[in-house]
């Protein structure tokens, strides 16, 4: 920790801020672990739903309940991360609120879909719209282009899904999971591992 009496040059001060940004990056998105978990779950659930629609063979349970499984590793990562850190940066707070906001909106949207009995094609489009928001903003805040690109893909597929059948919608949803979370997560994971080796 830097002592109060130590003076830093302007450059050192800016370096400190950049390091804080860097640390926030590492703890939230640079490891990519959470992103990979979410990506895999969305891809798997979408493809299982696609299989059910395509083959007209129902599994007898709602495959989307598997998404709740992601909460367990998410909590584990958060607790493990908290133990390692001695400070919380402004960006980390922002990311916490951004993704918590996303969770709240997903919850409210699910409530709307059951309350309004929204057509499944429309509800898929609305979910993809929501997927794009935190992904695009996170990518923008951290200047991480794969996530900006992933967010845009979610929005494009959201609009496109309005003109396709539900089976195709599920393939679009899988593509969202792949481009918004899984691929950016893999890129971040590789970078993180490379940094650890250095």
């Amino acid at each position, binding site marked *: 920790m830097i002592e109060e009496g130590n003076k830093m040059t302007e450059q050192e*001060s800016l370096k400190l801020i950049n390091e804080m940004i860097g640390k926030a990056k590492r703890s939230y998105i640079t490891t990519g672990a959470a992103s990979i978990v979410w990506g895999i779950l969305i891809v798997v659930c979408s493809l299982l739903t696609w299989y059910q629609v395509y083959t007209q063979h129902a599994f007898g349970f709602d495959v989307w309940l598997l998404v709740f499984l992601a909460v367990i590793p998410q909590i584990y990562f958060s607790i493990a991360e908290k133990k390692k850190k001695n400070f919380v940066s402004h960006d980390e707070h922002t990311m916490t609120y951004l993704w918590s906001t996303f969770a709240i909106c997903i919850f409210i949207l699910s409530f709307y879909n059951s309350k309004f009995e929204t057509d499944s094609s429309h509800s898929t489009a609305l979910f993809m719209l929501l997927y794009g928001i935190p992904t695009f*903003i996170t990518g*923008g*805040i951290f200047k991480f282009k794969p996530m900006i690109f992933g967010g845009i893909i979610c929005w494009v597929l959201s609009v496109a899904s309005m003109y396709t059948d539900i089976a195709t919608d599920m393939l679009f949803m899988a593509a969202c999971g792949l481009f918004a979370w899984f691929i950016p997560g893999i890129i971040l994971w590789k970078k993180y591992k490379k940094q650890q080796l250095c």
Partner: protein
Amino acid sequence: MEQENFSPHESLQLIQSMIAKTRRDMSDNSIYFLLWGWITFAGCTGQFVLKNILHYEKHYLVWLLVIPGVIISMYLGMKEGKKREATTYIGDSMKYLWMGMGISYFVLSAILSTMGWDTNVFPFFILLYGLGTFISGKLLQFKPLVFGGLCAWAMAIASAFFNYDYQMLFAAAAILASYIIPAYMLRSKDKSAIK
């Protein structure tokens, strides 16, 4: 050039000043919040009056108000673009946040236009009002925006229990709480800070 020295405390002050500068920029740009806030408020209340009190069949025409809104925003945007100053890191984050929200409103409108504008469209918009303002409030550490976002979500849930006609009034109240009031408060805070 002589190098300026900062203590860690001063460095933290620098970050705080970044937040303050972004707030000032946001206050300068609050015209957009107010413009769209009032257009939406007028649209919602106007449609309610036209549909339920005057029983005018083409009540949705009130939303043509959006067209001058777009023109004014484009004009202001071009004018602003010419005198753009350096932005802070937080200012950059705000830029991506509102760029994302702008695209989302557009995508939501595209989805809802295929669902039909006479269905439950307002709760979806209220949900997004809350999202944008809540995150802005957290980024700028400005409580009225955070509170406005929370109010909007509460109204987003409550509106689902009412029919289309009353959902408009919830949307008007949500825009008042999440855009209009916080924008005025941001302006007055900025003015008093300058004094």
